[in-house]
């Protein structure tokens, strides 16, 4: 008669009671499920990377504060793409028209819940009134030189002086100021055109002159790409990317509006920026999880039907499985109130892990029935024989997960809670529900007259393949151990090379428009949407930092309130300068006529300056400038004069007729330019003090926190900051100026660092806890150590394969570490229990009897994980691959390496692996 310990006897008694009282047992399970339903109601799905950010780092805290307090950080970038239109001029105009149309569209009521403000054009109102007061002294002096005399010839002369002083031979400066330069040159081109028309005798309307001067002085209000065929709008949403309920409908609505308007004009529009990427994360991860859940369930239940040849198995195992998932969700809702991407993925994976308990119980039950036991005895014995292994396996797994709750960041901590609760929930539910469900089935069969001991005759739990492996192990344990060791050692040589994924965008779904547009913005606009952000409560610090950061070679541009900070000393200095400037301006008078010779001289000079700047732009690959200057000078990319320009026509007219300078039209133009420009400059030279509440609302809302206490500095890098090597340069240079920078690129690093640190600490703790459980279960330290060996081999092999195949660790797939510790040991535990029961020399029987069940549990677990592989979200796909691989490796090590080692140490070396002390009660025979 076999000897049963206390736990086994308790399990046997539960089997007996639950069969006799199957209805009561099912009611108990149902009541608990209903009670936990309250937890499910409280559960929120937070499926963005942002929601997973750890809050123990200053950088993350700052980023969260910025997202919550500055609408700038949540800005949705609407990219208008007119590249499908071949004619550049038409494309540019269509893009501008589309921006205006989308701005109008967004003023409709349906967008009001989602849009706080729209920036289609830059608001120049403040600059038009106080532009000169906002200009630094050295630039003011330059402007004073340029505008000291607004008659045509002196104006052109000073413009030429300025070009020669600022840009000649300085392609870097030209590149830095390309956008402004393009606008200025365009304005200048328009002015030349007006001079040409006037020289022809045409009168220039006030409105046209006003338009040209505005363009020349204040630039292009639209944000255009380098070749003007794309445009950019910024939508400030009413929500942040943390407002999960608003995120998806809000971004969807804004996107639909832009796409509709663009489509009506035959061009395209798309959204990017972290808020849009956040929406995409929700959509792709949710879609991925739904597909994964269905796929995993179908595969798992299909496998069960196939293996057990019993169509009621999906119900008998599926009902407890789903109930266990519901319990886990309910408990998660009660304790942590939410699921993130990682924990939601775990819930799907739990389908594959939770079913393992059912497989072991059903296998034991079927083996008993096959062996001739009646229903009740089969239930009792299956619980007794399989129960201990199942409980120990579940406890080691749950313990490994619960150790994660010591992690510092919530991401890992939540995973620990949910995963541990999941394993325990499934364990309890399986024991609670499977015996009564089998009893219910038995009762129905009896009613239908289908009774008898061998009702599962088609089932073959003891498979030939498993028996064959068992025989091989018994015959050549040393050879098997050596081969497996060599495989592990060979992978150990590469294991250290496994990489870390530091590009968050590489974890997103492939082909996402938001990610694609992120790259396009770098290429077409020369700006990367993902830069660094700094908050400061001191405007002087904002300016100091802005000045320093702006000089860094890895920085494309800096947006801040720096220009709006004017110290008292500066205010006095600039006021005094501007007063003198106006006085000097007043001392000049409109000339009676234009000196034709001087005009010609300055036009020649201007044309040469523009040609030289065109050369520099050409060599510097500044396409936008090359086009603009080429249009003005008629020179093509090869430097060949191909078109007649205003210059040529003016030369012709002025050289032929030197009296044109005294013509009424040109005199009138000179007079109008003089007075209108004078008026505009005088307006710009207002010496009134500037306060922050005078800022245009879009600037104020973007760069000042909602409580008005802090200010934002936004730094755009010169390249894609997600590229590892460049990111280091960008962040190193930034750190040479300030350690206050934050942004998704740094936070991604923080996530990796914290996941690694927590992973290491929790894993070490998990290994200790699992080891202690094994010691408590087997009461033999040697056996506990031997049982840990395949786990070590599995880690080495997994890391080696990842290094060889180039699969990187990221903060999602790092989940494999605790999962492997928790699950990877289960198979070895089951083999140990069976081996201890069967005794020395019977490893072939052990593997024959447990091998198929172990294979099935491994397959179901792998199905659970592999269901992530079809996901379009690369983080989920990678996690699916890594976890499936890990489970397959763990299985092979458990059924080949571990039994071989067991045979060698017990049967060849004579180690004693029996429990060191037998409890008095345990010695009782049942």
């Amino acid at each position, binding site marked *: 008669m076999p000897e049963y310990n206390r736990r086994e006897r308790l399990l046997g008694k539960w089997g007996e009671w639950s069969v006799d009282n199957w209805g009561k047992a099912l009611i108990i399970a149902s009541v608990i499920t209903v009670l936990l339903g309250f937890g499910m109601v409280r559960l929120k799905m937070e499926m963005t990377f942002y929601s997973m950010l750890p809050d123990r780092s200053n950088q993350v805290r700052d980023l969260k504060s910025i997202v919550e307090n500055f609408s700038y950080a949540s800005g949705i970038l609407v990219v208008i793409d007119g590249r499908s239109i071949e004619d550049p001029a038409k494309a540019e105009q269509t893009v501008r028209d589309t921006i205006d149309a989308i701005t109008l569209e967004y003023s409709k009521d349906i967008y009001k819940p989602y849009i706080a403000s729209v920036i289609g054009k830059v608001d120049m109102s403040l600059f038009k009134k106080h532009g000169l007061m906002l200009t630094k002294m050295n630039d003011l002096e330059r402007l004073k030189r340029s505008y000291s005399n607004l008659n045509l010839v002196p104006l052109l002369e000073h413009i030429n002086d300025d070009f020669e002083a600022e840009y000649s031979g300085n392609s870097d400066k030209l590149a830095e100021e390309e956008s402004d330069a393009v606008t200025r040159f365009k304005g200048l081109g328009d002015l030349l055109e007006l001079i040409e028309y006037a020289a022809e005798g045409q009168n220039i309307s006030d409105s046209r002159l006003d338009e040209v001067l505005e363009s020349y002085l204040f630039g292009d209000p639209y944000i255009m790409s380098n070749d003007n065929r794309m445009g950019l709008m910024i939508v400030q949403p009413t929500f942040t990317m943390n407002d999960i309920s608003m995120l998806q409908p809000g971004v969807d609505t804004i996107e639909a509006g832009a796409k509709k308007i663009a489509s009506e004009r035959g061009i395209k529009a798309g959204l990017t920026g972290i808020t849009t990427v956040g929406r995409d994360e929700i959509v792709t991860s949710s879609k991925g999880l739904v597909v994964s859940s269905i796929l995993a369930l179908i595969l798992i239940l299909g496998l069960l039907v196939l293996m057990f040849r019993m169509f009621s198995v999906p119900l008998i195992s599926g009902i407890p499985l789903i109930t266990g998932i519901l319990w886990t969700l309910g408990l998660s809702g009660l304790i942590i109130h939410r699921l993130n991407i990682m924990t939601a993925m775990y819930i799907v994976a739990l389908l594959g892990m939770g079913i393992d308990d059912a497989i072991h119980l059903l296998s034991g039950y079927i083996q008993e029935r096959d062996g001739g036991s009646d229903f009740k005895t089969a239930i009792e014995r299956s619980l007794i024989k399989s129960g201990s292994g199942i409980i120990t396996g579940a406890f080691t797994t749950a313990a490994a997960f619960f150790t994660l709750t010591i992690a510092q960041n919530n991401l890992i901590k939540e995973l620990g809670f949910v995963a541990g609760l999941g394993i325990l929930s499934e364990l309890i539910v399986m024991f609670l529900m499977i015996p009564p469900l089998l009893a219910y089935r038995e009762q129905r069969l009896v009613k239908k007259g289908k009774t008898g001991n061998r009702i599962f005759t088609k089932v073959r739990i003891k498979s030939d393949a498993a028996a064959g492996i068992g025989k091989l192990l018994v015959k050549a344990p040393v050879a098997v151990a050596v081969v497996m060791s060599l495989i592990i050692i060979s992978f150990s040589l590469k294991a250290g090379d496994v990489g870390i994924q530091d590009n968050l965008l590489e974890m997103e779904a492939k082909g996402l428009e938001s990610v694609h547009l992120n790259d396009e913005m770098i290429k077409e606009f020369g700006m990367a949407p993902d830069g660094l952000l700094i908050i400061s409560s001191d405007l002087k610090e904002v300016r100091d930092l802005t000045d320093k950061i702006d000089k860094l070679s890895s920085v494309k541009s800096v947006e801040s309130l720096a220009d709006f900070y004017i110290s008292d000393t500066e205010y006095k200095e600039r006021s005094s300068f501007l007063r003198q400037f106006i006085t000097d301006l007043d001392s000049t008078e409109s000339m009676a006529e234009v000196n034709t010779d001087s005009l010609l001289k300055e036009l020649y000079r201007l044309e040469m300056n523009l040609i030289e700047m065109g050369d520099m732009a050409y060599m510097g690959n500044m396409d936008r400038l090359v086009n603009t200057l080429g249009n003005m000078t008629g020179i093509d990319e090869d430097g060949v004069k191909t078109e007649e320009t205003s210059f040529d026509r003016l030369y012709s007219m002025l050289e032929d007729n030197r009296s044109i300078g005294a013509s009424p039209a040109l005199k009138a133009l000179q007079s109008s330019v003089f007075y209108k420009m004078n008026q505009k400059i005088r307006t710009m030279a207002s010496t009134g003090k500037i306060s922050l509440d005078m800022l245009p609302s879009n600037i104020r809302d973007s760069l000042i926190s909602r409580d008005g206490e802090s200010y934002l500095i936004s730094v755009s890098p010169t390249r894609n900051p997600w590229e590892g090597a460049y990111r*280091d340069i960008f962040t190193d240079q930034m750190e040479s100026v300030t350690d206050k920078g934050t942004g998704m690129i740094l936070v991604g690093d923080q996530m990796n660092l914290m996941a690694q640190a927590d992973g290491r600490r929790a894993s070490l703790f998990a290994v200790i806890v699992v080891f202690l459980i094994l010691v408590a279960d087997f009461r033999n330290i040697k056996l506990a150590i031997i049982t840990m060996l395949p786990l070590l081999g599995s880690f080495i092999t997994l890391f080696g394969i990842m290094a060889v195949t180039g699969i990187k660790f990221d903060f999602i797939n790092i989940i494999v570490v605790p999962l492997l510790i928790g699950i990877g040991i289960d198979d070895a535990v089951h083999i140990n229990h069976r081996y201890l029961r069967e005794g020395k020399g019977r490893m072939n029987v052990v593997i024959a009897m447990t091998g198929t069940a172990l294979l099935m549990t491994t397959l179901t677990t792998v199905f659970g994980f592999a269901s992530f592989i079809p996901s379009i979200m690369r983080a989920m796909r990678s996690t699916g691959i890594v976890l499936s691989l890990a489970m397959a490796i763990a299985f092979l090590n458990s059924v080949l390496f571990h039994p071989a080692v067991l045979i060698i140490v017990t049967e060849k070396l004579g180690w004693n692996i029996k429990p060191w002390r037998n409890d008095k009660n345990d010695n009782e025979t049942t």
Partner: protein
Amino acid sequence: MKKTFISALLVSAITIGSLTAQTAQEIVDRADEAFQGDRVYSTSSMTVYKSGEAQAVQKIESYTMEKAGKTYSLSVYTAPRRMKGTANLMIEDDLWVRFGSTGRTRKLSSSAKKNSAGGSDFSYADMGDGGQGLSEKYTPQLTGENTVEGERCYEIELIANASDAPYEKMVVYITKDNYRYLKIEYFENNANIKSMTFYDYKTVNGTDYPFRYIMESHTKPSVTEVIVDIFEIDSSKVKDRMFTTGYLESIR
């Protein structure tokens, strides 16, 4: 008189440092010996790759001369068509640019030497500066050994010791077996902003010279490759009169 030239290869920006770093100094001196000579004439093709796309190939004739302790350098573009006749003249810290398209010559401020030359990843200073003026601005320090392009190299840091040094730091890699420069890394604000790597060393007048070198920017998606076609030392093509603004204006 020992004549030293600093070729368009820039490498001689690295020379005499502190007395306390003898070993590093000796290595750098040995490497610099390869660039000792005078009146160097070279023709080269320079291609700038922006985001991987090759721009128009720039053909350049370079003339370098060392006289009375001053370094003279003249680079004349012969292609592409648009840039033909454009030239840069550098005499120590003075820099002039002559535009082929307009025939005008402009004197630039000395700070412009840090600017990009011809839209490439080389600065004007990289293209033609050097000599004792620059060498005095860095202190060499041997920091270890490293493998570059499969060859074991000394790794030497050159820390700027003058406020007007073009870079705050350079790290040079010099082969252990034959004292060739293989790589130079340029640092600004704690970061390696660009790197130059040397290839295809050939022997000219008994000394080894790289006939191909690549400057890669790490802050922009840009790489510049220079292939030297002709390289002559003590060349009769290099005349004193070339290093004047008058000569610049006469270039056609």
